[in-house]
């Protein structure tokens, strides 16, 4: 019985641990895709955020500076994508992928001297009362500030997308550029802003990874989680609230498999290692029809060949 509680706690810890950085990247990609663009450079933006956030923190001693540096770095990389796909009309998938490689290269080079740096970083803040709930409170409410912001950002984005003028403009651009244009919006400006915001959020996710969760910079430390974020947006059917579910499921699966190993569960760790990916694939297959309906029109040309 105690093992079950332990595994449950481990799952929650994992959900918030590796989950938060993926959640930020998912939010970012979601905003970008809602505006009708897809950014496969999310992985690169995460790495930029992790690396430059860590470097700025190591240099200044302030994690706050690091967080903003990470956002700026992530945003900067995505602006290259914005220029290329919007003004030069390049292929979005190829450009995004190239930018991920570019981000990986730049950060490996720039971060070389910081691999062994020790930083104060972001430290957990326990929320009074809530943090005393057994297991749940420990996992969810003894986290760094970026985790709490991430909890709030989901509902905020939901309201923003569906009930504000800005959000509606963004969605309109994603559905039909010409209609949005006819309605007096400037689709280019909106798409650039969405891509920049998306990159900033991915960078924030990266910064959470290096400053909050691990207090470490190491080359390629996102190990593909930026691409997971792209997948999670589809999984979440472009809804910020479901994005939270997706990212926490992904992180939770990592926590689950590590904690299952500590209790000696009779399952191969290699099978367990596939869990996060299997869960995502399974849910995507399950909801594929609904997902197709929810997809912004502007993405269909890029993501679907047979509509």
């Amino acid at each position, binding site marked *: 019985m105690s093992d079950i509680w332990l595994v449950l706690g481990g799952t929650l810890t994992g959900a918030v*641990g590796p989950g938060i950085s993926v959640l930020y990247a998912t939010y970012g990609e979601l905003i970008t895709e809602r505006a009708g663009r897809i950014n496969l450079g999310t992985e690169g933006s995460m790495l930029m955020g992790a690396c430059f956030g860590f470097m700025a923190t190591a240099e200044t001693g302030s994690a706050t500076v690091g967080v903003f540096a990470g956002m700026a770095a992530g945003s900067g990389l995505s602006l290259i994508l914005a220029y290329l796909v919007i003004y*030069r*009309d390049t292929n979005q998938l190829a450009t995004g992928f190239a930018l991920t490689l*570019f981000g*990986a290269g730049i950060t490996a080079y720039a971060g070389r001297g910081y691999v*062994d740096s*020790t930083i104060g970083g972001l430290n957990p803040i326990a929320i009074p009362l809530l943090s005393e709930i057994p297991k749940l409170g420990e996992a969810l409410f003894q986290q760094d500030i970026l985790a709490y912001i991430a909890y709030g950002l989901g509902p905020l984005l939901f309201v923003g997308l569906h009930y504000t003028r800005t959000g509606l403009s963004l969605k309109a651009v994603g559905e039909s550029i010409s209609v949005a244009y006819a309605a007096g919006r400037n689709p280019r400006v909106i798409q650039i802003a969405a891509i920049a915001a998306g990159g900033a959020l991915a960078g924030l996710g990266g910064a959470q990874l290096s400053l909050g969760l691990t207090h470490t910079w190491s080359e390629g*430390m996102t190990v593909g989680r930026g691409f997971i974020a792209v997948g999670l947006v589809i999984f979440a059917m472009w809804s910020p609230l479901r994005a939270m579910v997706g990212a926490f499921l992904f992180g939770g699966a*990592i926590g689950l498999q590590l904690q299952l190993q500590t209790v000696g569960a009779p399952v191969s760790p290699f099978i367990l290692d596939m869990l996060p990916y299997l869960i995502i694939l399974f849910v995507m297959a399950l909801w594929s029809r609904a997902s197709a309906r929810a997809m912004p029109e502007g993405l269909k040309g890029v993501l679907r060949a047979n509509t």
Partner: protein
Amino acid sequence: MYNRIKNLSLFSSLFTRSSRILIGALMLVAVLALAACSSDPTAAPTSTSAPQPTESSPGSDSGSVTATSPSSADLAGGSTEVFLQGFEDAAAGSPFRSTSEFAAAAKPLPAGEKLKIGFIFVGSQKDLGYNQAAAEGSQYLERVFDDIEILRSENIPETADVQAVEEQMIRDGASIIFATSFGYSGPTKEIIEKHPDVMFLHMGDVEAFENYGAFFGNIWQLEYAAGQVAGATSKTGKLGFIAAFPIPQTLLNVNAFHLGAQSVNPDVETTFVLTSSWCDPAKQATAVQAMVDADIDVLTQHQDCTKTIVEAAERAGIFVSGYHQDASPAAPNAWLTGAAWNWGPVYAEIVAEIRKGTYKSSVMFQGLDAGWVQLSPFGDFLDADVKQTALDTVESLRTGSFKPFTGPIKDQDGAIQIADGVVPTDAELQGTGYLLEGITGRTN
């Protein structure tokens, strides 16, 4: 409909001239950036140290080829005689020709030229771990030889990428290449026949070829001693071991760590968790939390980058035993001790023998007695008797009077793996494929 056509044209726009140029340029920049980071000779100071007079053995008559014969200080307490004897024995038992007959490195250097030696690392040279230990070994080479140049390449994955790096190093003139990561063995062995005059050295392989020698240290000896410190320190009696993959080296380490802990606390339990990555800091941090939740209060690891786990243990208020490299400054309140490498003299002796033409490919395993491995400094807060126990163990392992893996040794299922009274050889130990009784975890 218009949208449909426009979107489809996005794909074909890939083939318009301006986009093609742009994407090409972008790819080029990405490739350049990657190349800049991977082939990076400036990452560590190359020959910054003043060429110091090297210790030449009395018989050495060649000015350029310096024999090493490291002092006992360099050997971390090991004996110079045992150290050199190990190399002699390895050469005597080798079925291959000596390097004088084929290796470019054994030929005299043209005047003014330097002997180029390539080092390839799977991670960062400053990872406070495996790669840093190897990188420091390569810096030792620069200190003892004044006529060599080291080519370094870090963060090279264990794929065909390593072949590309090796080929590039050979084009750049390298005649000796150290492939320092376990997973480099496969790709490297595929190209050794293509370069019969280049000497490849691999760390951890269990087979050798004429121009492909392998060696590794018996670091498990220190895992045993560190396990004793861990077992004596733990209040909960639960230890944690965070590993990457269940390869024989790792299984041997966790078994030794557990045996050591058991020798001071018979009821101790060790939990073995795999992250399936040599360096995934997010998973490492999560694994530390999982262990803290499971009441584990001392942990150690077999990962390439060790910093995240060491620091996470410090923040969580538990204890940590190091691996690969002394990382005690990162965790003043958590650091117990650790198992560490001492590669410098080993590399130096191999290089000296290759140059003299006396090296013959072999598979070498050496330990404390030859000074290949060492115990990391103790945490300040440890009791004197705990430290003394570990030091006594190190001493008895060094002299060979104590063999921890003497049978009977039972695995997790209670099956006898080493029969009563049997003492396994180094090679048998390096082939360990099981976890001991008392360890929670899986090997597959």
